[in-house]
């Protein structure tokens, strides 16, 4: 059982935001090992949120307006099936207004999505 299942949904969303910041920094620093650790944690949190239903997954929605672009970006990646227009706007903005490695990440996300490689649900 995931250690995250015991946490409240609100705590999971807070934790998601903290991990998003660390994941974004890992991308920026090309620290792949650290990135993949953070990715796995984020996936584990998302699985728990998903198991609680779409209403709970939508608790990530306010993160799209976070002051932190890493938080906005990763929330958008996880919400693109539930809030496609708003999430896409966020990812497009990161792709075109970032001047570091996150721009590449965001651009390739859109490419994968538009070419059917990334099929979020």
């Amino acid at each position, binding site marked *: 059982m995931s250690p995250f299942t015991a946490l409240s949904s609100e705590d999971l969303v807070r934790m998601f935001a903290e991990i998003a910041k660390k994941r974004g920094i890992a*991308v920026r620093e090309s620290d792949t090992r650290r990135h993949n650790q953070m*990715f796995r944690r984020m996936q584990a949190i998302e699985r728990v949120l998903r198991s609680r239903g779409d209403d709970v997954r939508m608790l990530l929605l306010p993160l799209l307006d976070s002051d932190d672009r890493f938080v906005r970006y990763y929330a958008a990646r*996880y919400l693109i099936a539930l809030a496609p227009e708003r999430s896409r706007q966020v990812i497009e903005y990161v792709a075109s207004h970032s001047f570091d490695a996150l721009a590449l990440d965001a651009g*390739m996300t859109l490419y994968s999505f538009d070419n059917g490689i990334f099929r*979020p649900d």
Partner: protein
Amino acid sequence: MRIPDEAPDTARERNNIVRRAAEWLRAAAAIGAAFDPEARAVWAMLEAAAWVAGHLPEIRSYLDARKTLEELQNAVDDRQPGYEIHHIVEAQYGSFHPDSNARIFADRLESRENLVRIPKWKHVEISSWYSRLSEEDEKKTPRSYLRGRSWEAQYAIGIQALRQAGVLK
């Protein structure tokens, strides 16, 4: 932004400072502020720190405008500090996997069509992207997703990565 006079102890710390400076200057250039006092001050700090001298070419190359594929390919014959040679279809020479590109496409990897000269830190960014897990498939990196796929499929992704990294027009 602050550039320490003394070199940080680790390569990671040094690289982080150099990269943040390069990114900052790139952002400044993008909004037309490359010659504003703040940008000039950053350049002055970089040039004043002796330990940064060896990194200046990679900072300058990070500010390059996008180039055509032909320009990037032609530059391969003109090796310069601050740049690295990048394989559009990854070479994977260190891989022992039976489907590694080094085994399957040995005769094409070093061809003119597959080699481009790009800014050093863009090379690092693209190579890192190939190694990152992502939501597309939680068990696969782009590298493992592409393993065993056709040359054309891998080339198309490689071109897209150059474009999204801001290297290719």
